């Protein structure tokens, strides 16, 4: 499952874990209903749709008849999700039946007949003329985001002073940075993985952290979630009268990415079969990210030239990045020129990255004890069987009567052998 889906699914799990009262209150808002409908797995959406105009309860057996045998696991997943979100209420009299949540149902019926409406009134046109253009907004959003990510990588490199509040920064960096007493903060393993994720996944992660921390600061989780979901229905670039905020593409893409898996931005990396990498980008952030796993050789005004070498990859692996993440990062950010080619990253490069990763797994170490000089073959055999029963036998040599067992059962072996000697 793409990473965005996992992280977004976690967000929906958080929604599902709200109390029953909060959830029912959430469903009074038609936009939340729509957002939650869109976030369901496809089969669940179908079931909800089919139940739109059915007031009574449907027996579970009848629902199972709708599904082909292949789809049975998906069916179960869908039903569980619907029950978890309190969209389906389960009644168990003679047989299990499901009924659609009535507030949800009436809100969506209205939506079907009257269509979607804008969340708030649009601003009067006099002010609209003074709003920044879409391009300015996008540039601003991307700039701020990069600034934030650069802060994560190295607190010294960010040029512009950020106006994120410091408590926010602490919240976000909690899982991603580790602060050791005397050293500067270093990125943790999940920090590295975070950097290589795509933008929507990163946004979801932060939103989730923010919401889980909101409890401490006294803000109601349900209100936050409903605001964020509603935010995604605004059109990028249109301001709203009351509160003077203008959503950017980042926000409006959020709800789309509840089930979507791509950030539709242009790629910039070309990887060649001789392990050289050319990244057409001017951003410092990209340079830093590439430095994580490759050796950057030249940096030109619009081009970063690097090579993927064994040392640079070993470095990355030690920091906790996996080969799959590197490869999927390269594939997702492939330059449009090579993106059409199948595969966008040459196979020999992908294979070599995976081989180098498995290099690190060549040797596996287990703490163990070595037994030698058994008095007789019977004692040796008995010891082997005992170790095997305890599932601690690692190696035996019947000819020379030698035995290696795991360290955990060493004490038990000693007791056993003492017992044997008597």
């Amino acid at each position, binding site marked *: 499952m793409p990473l965005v889906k996992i992280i977004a699914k976690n967000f929906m799990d958080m929604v599902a874990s709200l109390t029953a009262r909060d959830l029912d209150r959430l469903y009074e808002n038609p936009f939340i209903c*729509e957002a939650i*409908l*869109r976030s369901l797995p*496809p*089969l669940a*959406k*179908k079931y909800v*749709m*089919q139940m*739109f*105009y059915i007031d009574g309860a449907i027996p579970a057996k009848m629902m199972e*008849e*709708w*599904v*082909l045998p*292949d*789809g049975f696991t*998906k*069916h179960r997943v869908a039903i569980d999700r619907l029950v978890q979100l309190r969209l389906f209420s389960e009644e168990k009299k003679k047989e299990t039946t499901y009924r659609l949540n009535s507030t949800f149902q009436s809100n*969506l019926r209205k*939506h*079907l*007949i*009257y*269509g*979607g*409406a804008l969340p708030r009134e649009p601003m009067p046109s006099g002010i609209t003329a003074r709003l920044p253009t879409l391009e300015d907004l996008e540039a601003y959003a991307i700039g701020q985001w990069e600034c934030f990510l650069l802060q994560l990588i190295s607190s010294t490199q960010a040029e512009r002073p950020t106006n994120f509040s410091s408590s926010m920064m602490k919240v976000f960096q909690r899982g991603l940075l580790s602060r050791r007493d005397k050293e500067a903060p270093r990125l943790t393993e999940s920090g590295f993985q975070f950097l290589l994720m795509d933008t929507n996944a990163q946004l979801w992660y932060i939103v989730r952290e923010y919401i889980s921390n909101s409890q401490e600061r006294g803000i109601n989780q349900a209100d936050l979630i409903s605001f964020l979901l509603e935010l995604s229905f605004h059109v990028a670039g249109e301001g709203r009268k009351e509160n003077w905020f203008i959503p950017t593409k980042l926000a409006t893409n959020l*709800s*789309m990415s509840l*089930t*979507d*898996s*791509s950030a*539709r931005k242009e790629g910039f990396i070309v990887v060649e079969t001789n392990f050289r990498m050319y990244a057409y980008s001017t951003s410092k952030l990209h340079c830093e990210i590439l430095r994580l796993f490759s050796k950057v050789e030249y940096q030109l005004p619009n081009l970063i030239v690097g090579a993927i070498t064994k040392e640079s990859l070993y470095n990355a692996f030690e920091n906790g990045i996996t080969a799959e993440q590197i490869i999927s990062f390269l594939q997702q950010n492939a330059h449009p020129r090579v*993106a*059409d080619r199948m595969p966008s990253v040459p196979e020999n490069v992908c294979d070599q990255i995976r081989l180098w990763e498995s290099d690190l797994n060549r040797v596996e170490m287990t703490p163990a004890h070595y037994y030698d000089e058994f008095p007789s073959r019977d004692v040796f055999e008995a010891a082997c069987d005992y170790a095997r029963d305890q599932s601690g036998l690692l190696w035996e040599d019947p000819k020379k009567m030698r035995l290696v067992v795991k360290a955990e059962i060493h004490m038990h072996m000693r007791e056993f052998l003492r017992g044997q000697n008597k």
Partner: protein
Amino acid sequence: MASAPSKLYSDDVSLVVVLLDTNPFFWSSSSLSFSQFLTHVLAFFNAILTLNQLNQVVVIATGYNSCDYVYDSSSTGNQSVGNGRMPSLCATLLQNLEEFMNKDEQLGKQEPEGRIACSLLSGSLSMALCYIQRVFRSGLLHPQPRILCLQGSPDGPEQYVAIMNAIFSAQRSMVPIDSCYLGAQNSAFLQQASYITGGVHHKPQQLDGLFQYLLTIFGTDLHSRNFLQLPKPVGVDFRASCFCHKNTIDMGYICSVCLSIYCKHLKKCSTCGSVFGQAQTQSDEPSATNRKRKTTDA
């Protein structure tokens, strides 16, 4: 039949091109009135657009004399036209539909005697396929397209060739054609279309519940179709129509070069121009030999 693989999109994004039958000769004699039909259909469109932010609906009206695009949900000029009560989808669609029907009437041909006139299904199928081709060429990120045919008028045998060509090109591009037949008899063309391209054909028993049929059967996206039970084809009518008179025939003559179908023996194929040899006169010899063989075996 596997549907076209779509790259980089979540599984259930769909582009539905709806071919709406607006043949006035059919609707004036149908038990379901056109306005009731439209209420079901508009609610269905809203449902599709609600399911996923990236879903798209394109409506092509199939008229008696012409076909035209009536609505495209992805075009930005869809702001509501002044009327505060009706949402923009309905307003734009109804307005365009009205203009289309006025134009269609003005192109008027005489209604043929006896049977209900047929609508230009071949025209709208071709327009739908052209639109879908354009979507395919717009880049890697496109939704999975399918065609939904809401048809009530009977089949016009004169359109056989054009419709079969459209069906085969849909099969080639892996675009399923779903069809919902609202008329009295059966439509052989639609059954064949859905069978060949891997779509779903259904004739609703109760037209009052059309919305529920549309949602349950035709609202399923292509990904979920692998997991849900949908109506299976039962006894598809595969009869062809001859190329010369456009009559539906069971047995006929076929040109061995281009496979065109004729009901009578001709000297030369009208499609490819190849000359046919001497006709084999119907002699009893082959059947007599068979009979002889049968009796010896017995």
